């Protein structure tokens, strides 16, 4: 019997679950997760659950460093942003202290965070996963039939590494949406692709039959670290396209 797992699965039952994931680190999963949560919260009550227990980037993005979650009879109460957006992060348990854990502890800590979060009344849960193909993917798979949103940068090495994840997801029968972060920028009306023409990506999407959304580089986005919920630039427009893809 696995009490933590049972509690987590029970809380997630009937909710829309989206896992923002990548086998490569540093591609912008947390930013995409935060913006996706913000876009979705315009329509449904959306909870962002940061499962990256080592970096806890959502706390930095939303300006939650040093704040701790209240604990009620239903568990860790989300940090609210208006009525329809909430964030839960391990940072709100350890007060933004560093976390270094052996592998087995990492999985159990993620499972605990899932089990002890108060999700009552939230329609959708977005999981910001740590990079890699390990416990994070397995833990979530045990408690939720999630929709995968795979994030990559256009760099060839990232595309090659992300193919591992697409292969795995395809084997498990899941149909991900692929997001290419930092794909291009606009300069004097021209689209500039600093990482090349994206041929490798096009081949990848054809090989696995996955839809793809490209997100632009917006230097202004950096100004919103600490108040990401206020950002309303061109990257957010791309994230709106992602939600349309996920609905299909």
């Amino acid at each position, binding site marked *: 019997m696995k009490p933590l797992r049972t*509690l987590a699965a029970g809380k997630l039952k009937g909710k829309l679950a989206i896992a923002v994931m990548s086998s490569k680190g540093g591609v912008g999963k947390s930013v995409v997760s935060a913006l996706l949560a913000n876009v979705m919260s315009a329509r449904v009550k959306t909870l962002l659950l940061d499962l990256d227990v080592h970096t806890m980037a959502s706390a930095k993005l939303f300006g939650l460093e040093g704040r701790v979650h209240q*604990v009620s009879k239903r*568990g860790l109460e989300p940090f609210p942003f208006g009525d329809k957006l909430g964030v839960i992060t391990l940072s709100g348990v350890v*007060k933004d202290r560093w976390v270094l*854990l052996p592998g087995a*502890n990492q999985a159990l800590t993620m499972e605990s965070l899932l089990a002890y979060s108060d999700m009552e009344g939230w329609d959708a849960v977005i999981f910001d996963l740590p990079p890699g193909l390990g416990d994070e993917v397995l833990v979530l798979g045990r408690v939720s039939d999630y929709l995968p949103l795979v994030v990559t940068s256009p760099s060839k090495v990232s595309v090659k590494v992300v193919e591992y994840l697409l292969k795995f997801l395809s084997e498990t029968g899941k149909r991900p949406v692929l997001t290419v972060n930092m794909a291009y920028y606009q300069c004097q009306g021209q689209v500039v692709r600093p990482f090349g023409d994206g041929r490798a990506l096009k081949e990848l999407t054809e090989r696995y039959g996955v839809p793809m959304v490209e997100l632009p580089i917006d230097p202004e986005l950096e100004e919103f670290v600490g108040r990401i919920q206020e950002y309303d630039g061109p990257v957010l427009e791309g994230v709106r396209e992602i939600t349309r893809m996920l609905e299909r």
Partner: protein
Amino acid sequence: MHEWSIADAVIRTVEQWAEGRGRVKRIVIGVPSISFLDTDILTQAFDELKVGTSLRDANLQVKIKEQTFTCQLCGRRFTLKDVEDQVGEVRSEFGEEYPLHLIPTLSPSFIKCPSCGSRDVMVDNQDVTVEEVIMDETS
């Protein structure tokens, strides 16, 4: 307050397991000592949450599981008593809902080996477990 989540987890788990097996009389659970759960609150939460479930006649017994820590660097094995000053510091910094109370598997981030100071520490008995479910034979 965290004890309510533990009680919720135990009820959901045992209810699922006991479906079609008969009436449950007693449930024995093990909780890690480092979490300093209040067993009275845990039992009270269980008694309130079981109302209206198939476990309404069941009683809860809580066992505290002592933990052994093993330093992966120098090999020292130690117990909670050996690091009670470290745990005390964390409790006084965070208060009642301190991190190891909520998520005991975080302990390697908060506890150092008392001999060599390494954080590379393995811990056993870290999670809440259902140790025993005793059925009502008369049902």
